[in-house]
């Protein structure tokens, strides 16, 4: 066994040499500067890191000169004030500019050395290579930003986004979940998610958990019990998160109210039924009249008239469907021009082919110019007039009133018909909405007034309905005058 060498075995010179070597070549840069940053002393390590010769730096450059411009700004604004007032600064990140202009990320610690009278004399700094640490920091910052973005998405989402443990215990509960079910997070977190679900049954839930344990996402329709006692149907997507051993850790659950989706599906089913019914009527009429002529082997004016009438009805239905789908896809285009509202109204009335005695027009004598697409405006007027005739009994009078306001002009179509029930009035301009009459039946596609509203909106105008059951209805359209007041 040889004894380890001790202090007694080493000469002072050897120790001194070792210290110097540690100072010069240790894994850390050392730097002495005066108060304005001028470099007084620098060790070998820092020279090697920066690529400078000692003569390039000592008495020639300031520490700030080795910094990037933002670094200098930071040095002046924060590093130096701190050092001056607190006497030391620890672990501040800078980029040093190497002699080849490449950046070297470092951490810098400095102390202010004072003389016996407490007068600040010089700054002693230790500088550490922080290349790796800076890279981790950047990655950490990026991850933090990503996490914050995701958290914001979860927070702001209108969907309920919650997470639960493998046992179904709620771990997180976002604002969307609170909106959907009415329970705040503090009430739900830590509780069993199933306590607020009225379906599925145990068996389905167990199957769901089996799928999730195998790492497979699951989509299920569920019913939830809300805080206010109501029930909400949701579509839930379960995403399993497994740990390194493949065990189920957390499950993310995104739930969306499907009442709206179901309502849309229902509407679409009804629409299909109505459309089929409406289209079948004229087709039956056409086929019937054509077969009648063939059976008789003779031309019949009456049959041909009926065929033409029914064909025209078919054409109108198809036009309405096309127009509605264009509007729905936001592809309605308008050819706006200065249009005389009085002339347009008179033209629409005369097109109806109804006697003057039935329709009374109250309009100014001079033209009233509005900004409108004449074709679409005509469609709206025809639609309103046709409705008035359809819903007003017998020969009761219909009044069409054209009036001018300050920046706008309007046409009101007033009938003395059956009117619209108050509960239906707010919905008459909705798509597929059809007012049911007293006999419980309804007619048409439920598109006419919807199309009118959208056409008026596209014009920057509006359409309104007012009605008293048994007394009649008034439909009013309003359009901006030409030229529009805005210029």
């Amino acid at each position, binding site marked *: 066994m040889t004894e380890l060498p001790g202090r007694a075995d080493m000469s002072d010179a050897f120790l001194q040499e070792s210290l110097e070597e540690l100072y010069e070549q240790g894994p850390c840069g050392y730097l002495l500067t005066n108060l304005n940053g001028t470099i007084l002393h620098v060790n070998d390590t820092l020279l090697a890191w920066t690529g400078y010769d000692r003569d390039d730096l000592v008495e020639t450059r300031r520490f700030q000169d080795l910094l990037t411009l933002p670094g200098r700004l*930071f040095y002046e604004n924060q590093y130096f004030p*701190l050092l001056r*007032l607190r006497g030391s600064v*620890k672990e*501040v990140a800078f980029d040093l500019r190497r002699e080849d202009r490449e950046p070297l990320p470092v951490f810098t610690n400095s102390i202010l050395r004072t003389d016996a009278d407490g007068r600040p004399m010089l700054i002693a700094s230790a500088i550490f290579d922080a290349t790796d640490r800076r890279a981790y920091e950047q990655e950490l910052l990026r991850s933090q930003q990503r996490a914050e973005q995701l958290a914001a998405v979860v927070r702001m989402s209108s969907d309920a986004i919650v997470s639960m443990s493998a046992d179904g215990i709620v771990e997180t509960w976002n604002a969307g979940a609170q909106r959907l079910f009415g329970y705040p997070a503090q009430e739900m977190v830590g509780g069993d998610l199933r306590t607020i679900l009225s379906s599925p049954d145990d068996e389905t839930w167990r199957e769901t958990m089996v799928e999730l344990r195998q790492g497979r996402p699951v989509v299920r329709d569920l019913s939830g019990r809300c805080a206010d006692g109501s029930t909400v149907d949701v579509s839930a997507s379960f995403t399993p998160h497994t740990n390194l051993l493949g065990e189920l850790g957390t499950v993310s659950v995104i739930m969306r109210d499907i009442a709206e989706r179901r309502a849309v599906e229902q509407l679409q089913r009804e629409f299909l039924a109505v459309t089929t019914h409406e289209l079948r009527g004229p087709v039956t009429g056409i086929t019937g009249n054509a077969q009648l002529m063939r059976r008789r082997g003779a031309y019949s004016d009456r049959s041909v008239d009926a065929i033409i009438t029914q064909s025209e009805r078919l054409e109108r239905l198809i036009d309405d469907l096309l127009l509605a789908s264009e509007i729905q896809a936001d592809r309605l285009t308008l050819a706006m021009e200065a249009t005389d509202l009085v002339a347009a109204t008179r033209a629409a009335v005369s097109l109806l082919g109804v006697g003057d005695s039935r329709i009374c027009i109250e309009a100014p004598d001079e033209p009233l110019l509005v900004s409108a697409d004449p074709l679409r405006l005509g469609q709206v007027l025809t639609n309103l007039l046709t409705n008035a005739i359809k819903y007003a009994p017998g020969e009761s009078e219909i009044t069409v009133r054209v009036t001018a306001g300050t920046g706008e002009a309007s046409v009101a179509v007033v009938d003395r018909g059956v009117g619209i029930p108050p509960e239906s009035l707010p919905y008459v301009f909705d798509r597929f909405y059809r007012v049911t009459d007293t006999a419980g039946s309804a007619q048409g596609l439920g598109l006419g007034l919807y199309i009118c509203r959208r056409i008026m909106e596209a014009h920057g105008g509006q359409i309104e309905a007012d009605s008293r059951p048994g007394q009649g209805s008034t439909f009013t359209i309003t359009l901006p005058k030409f030229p529009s007041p805005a210029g």
Partner: protein
Amino acid sequence: MIFAHGYGCDQNMWRLVTPAFTDTHRVILFDHVGAGRSDLAAYDRAKYSSLHGYAQDLLEICDELDVTGGIFVGHSVSAMIGVLAAIAEPERFSRLVLIGPSPRYIDDGDYVGGFTRKDIDELLELQASNYLGWSATLAPVIMGNAERPELSDELQASFCSTDPEIAKQFAAVTFLSDNRSDLPQVRVPSLALQCQDDAIAPMAVGQYVQRHLPACEMVVLNATGHCPHLSAPEETIAAIRDFLDS
């Protein structure tokens, strides 16, 4: 005499200068919201999205303390905050002392501010990196700090412990602001103190300020850097005294 600290620190910045004036003046010190021991709850992102928010605070302080014809001393960005306040309520101030002022940090056509937009973006990144939590210096409250018995605990605890989120916005507002068109509107006589070798407000910027501020005297100090009130307090005090006596 009201002293306004610049970006990055707090009112302690003035510790080496204010004692010279306490005998002759009432000295008012404050921290901008977000800095030092200010009430962080008073921070409002919208209000402080421009320097006008800070100028409004300065005027509120003047109003509260009934300052009229006061002497304003502002460092760095606070020089511009003082300029904005003096335009809004000139009667509040009889003199402005602007230390290292810059109306715009970013170069713009013929105007040389000393920085490019990229420099400022990098500064904001560096800032983020230093606030990450490893920097013991800049987050002393969070990290605890070295024993410095000669300084009061109070100073240690508060000095430069700017709230990171607020500091980020303050830095962006400071370094992206453009107050060049405000300068000619000032009616109060002013002194611009310019250092040698100031990386933040170079000589050309100081000269620009002097040319565009009506009644502005410029004194070039022997001090270097951006904080002469810290690196050369005696010279700074003398220059301010000369200006006040003139």
